[in-house]
């Protein structure tokens, strides 16, 4: 798989998603664009540990992990200054008030939408 040299090349993206099929879908897209997908992470405690220890450029967080909210993971990432975006079937309305305004990718999503979100996250502001 030859990837063009882009802003994403070589980036490490943490992917927290409890559906294996969806995780694989995201991993495929990231790999296609020269990134590495860190995961799979489908449980909040696993994800928390990874958020504390892994060195990543950005993170994608499924809001609901087998019925448990992913927000603690988001808080750790924020503390560490790691940009992140949410994945959710609910859209922005599915977010808690304090997380509104964060980048959100609605499921199902297009490849293009996913890559645009990740590009936004890894682009320094």
């Amino acid at each position, binding site marked *: 798989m030859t990837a063009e040299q882009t802003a994403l090349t070589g980036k490490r993206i943490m992917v927290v998603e*409890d*559906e*294996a*099929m*969806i*995780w*694989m*879908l995201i991993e*495929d897209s990231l790999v296609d664009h020269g990134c590495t997908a860190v995961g*799979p*992470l*489908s*449980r909040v405690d696993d994800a928390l540990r990874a958020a504390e220890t892994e060195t990543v450029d950005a993170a994608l967080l499924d809001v*609901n992990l*087998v019925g448990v909210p992913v927000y603690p993971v988001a808080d750790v990432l924020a503390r560490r200054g790691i940009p992140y975006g949410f994945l*959710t*079937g*609910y859209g922005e309305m*599915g977010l808690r008030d304090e997380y509104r305004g964060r980048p959100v990718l*609605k*499921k*199902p*999503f297009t490849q293009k939408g996913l890559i645009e979100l990740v590009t936004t996250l890894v682009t320094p502001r």
Partner: protein
Amino acid sequence: MKLRKWTAIARPYTASIRAHLVLIVFASTLPILGFAAYLLVWNNTIQREQVELQLLNTARAARVTVDAEMQAAITTLETLRLTSALDTSDLDEFRRQARAVADQHQMWTGLILVEPDGQQVINLAAQPGQPLPNIADYEIFKRVLATGKPAVSELLVGRVLPQPLVGIEVPVFREGRIRYVLGTSLLISSLRDRLRQLVASPELLAGALDSKHIVAVRTDSEDVTRRTTLPWLSNAIRNQPEGIFYSLDDAGSRLAIAFNRSDLSGWTIFVWAPESYLENAANRSLRALYIGGAALVLSALLLTFLIVRRIERPVARLSAAADAYVRGMTDIPSMATGVHEVDKLAETLREAGLERRRLADERTQVLVEEERRERAESLAAQAQASEMQFRALADAMPVLLSYVGTDLCYRFANRTYEDWYGIPAERIRGMPARDLIGDEAMRQSQAYIDRALAGEVVRFEKPLALPGGDVRHVAIHYIPRRGAEGSVEGFYALLVDLTERKRAEDHRQLLLNELNHRVKNTLTTVQSVARQTARSASSFREFYEAFESRLLSLAETHDVLTRENWRGASLREIVQVSLSPWSVESGRFEVAGPDVRVSARIALALSMALHELATNAVKYGALSVPTGGVALTWEVEDRDSGRVVMLRWREQGGPPVMPPTRKGFGSRLLERGLPEELDGEVDLQYSSAGVQCAIRFTVGQETP
């Protein structure tokens, strides 16, 4: 005025005072008017006789006038006949003398001299040389010959001078016998002129009938040549020499006609006038009587009216007072009407009324007392019934219903309070609200209570903690009650339990959110399956078949889970459903293991994994040759953390297995996805005897 029955003829006529007084007026004025009328009629009769006499005198005067003209003509002719010219029949001489005489009489038409055989010998009116007519057939001529006396003719038309005229002829005697007849004629128009002079009044008309009763003269008409007769006139005058009678003219108006007949000529002279001419004078008197009489009656009536007013009003008031008394009224006013009898009667009525009231008051007092007592008893009974009805209604309501005074103590609480708080409703009445619902609830409700006491209808919802820890979600209404002066005296509190509804709503919302989440996740899963199927497919057909197969497998598992309300599924059923596409090969599957319930998440993951293993086996593994088979077995082991399931997939009898050169969808799912999904371990071995896969995972303890 009451209508009275006529029971006897002797009973006097009943009428109002006004009617009686009007009767008096007529009784006093009518005889006077009657006498005046009699005088007038009498006077009228006299006046009429006078006028009739006047008319008759006019007729006489007219007759005398006409007679005078005729007599003058006769006398002149009698003088002329004595002339000596006729002794010798010197006709030329006689003609000269006659012309001289005729010239003196303007009324004359001329003069004739006639032989006894009727042949005219002289006619002054004829032209010289004109043949003269014979007049032997004239009646007048015959009469003169027969009587030897002068005669006057009827109306004639001249044979020489064709005009209406009257002939006058006298015999001329010589030697004892008639030698000639001497005649002349008067123009009717001349007579008419005479009559016109006589009756100067335009209303009076005059005329004459000749001896044959033919209309000879009329002052209102020039033409008498038609020789008209008037039979009614002839009849009226036939037997009397003079008189007066009445008739109708052609237009139907009454005429008064006076007539007088001449002995000399046999002509009748008449004068007629319209009856109004006679009556005018009498009518003037009558009109005076009408006007004067009417004025008399009117002034009498006016005076009567004034008097009636003075009497009628007091009597009417008295009558009203009497009516009032009859109707049962007791406060009859006293009167000062100016009519002594009326005032006195009114006073009597007033006293009778006062006496009646005193008696009635005594009676009423007793009745009122009785009624008041009965009403009070009835009201008390009604109030009690109403109160009981209200209580029954309020107690039957599945809501909290109470009335709270401004002191925040319950005045009323229905039975539901008893059910919720465990305190008898009777005890709640009078209890401060704080004591019942607690300080915390009171603090939460205080603002709303203040608004209700300020007169506002308040509605809010809140959780209500009950003794014993139960919390109910209630909708609360406070409805202020105002007293008679409009100030708020308290408020009604209505608490409706919304707990069940709230719970149902929350649950529904939860389900909706969950459904949305699940649908989106499923769609994304399908998207992932499609993408990864596409990655390993070498043709669209291959892609489509593989994708369809995976999609249908997923759908089958969804069916199972939906049947179970997504609470989980039987592992055995999942296995059966997952392998069902290859059921024709069922004999080549050896499936064994205790049934165990797994969660929906595990069911889905296992289903997909089994589907991939089976697909791979059919394409490349043990099921790709007729001799191969698959053993699918599992064991369950109870641990503290839950029940651990160890599931094994073992292929045998297939072609020798070569590890895949690159990881496809199946191996990726099994090795990377499945452990995450199951939170377990997966060991996939491509041993040469056949593919082996060991899957180990824990199911929740709650699933038996």
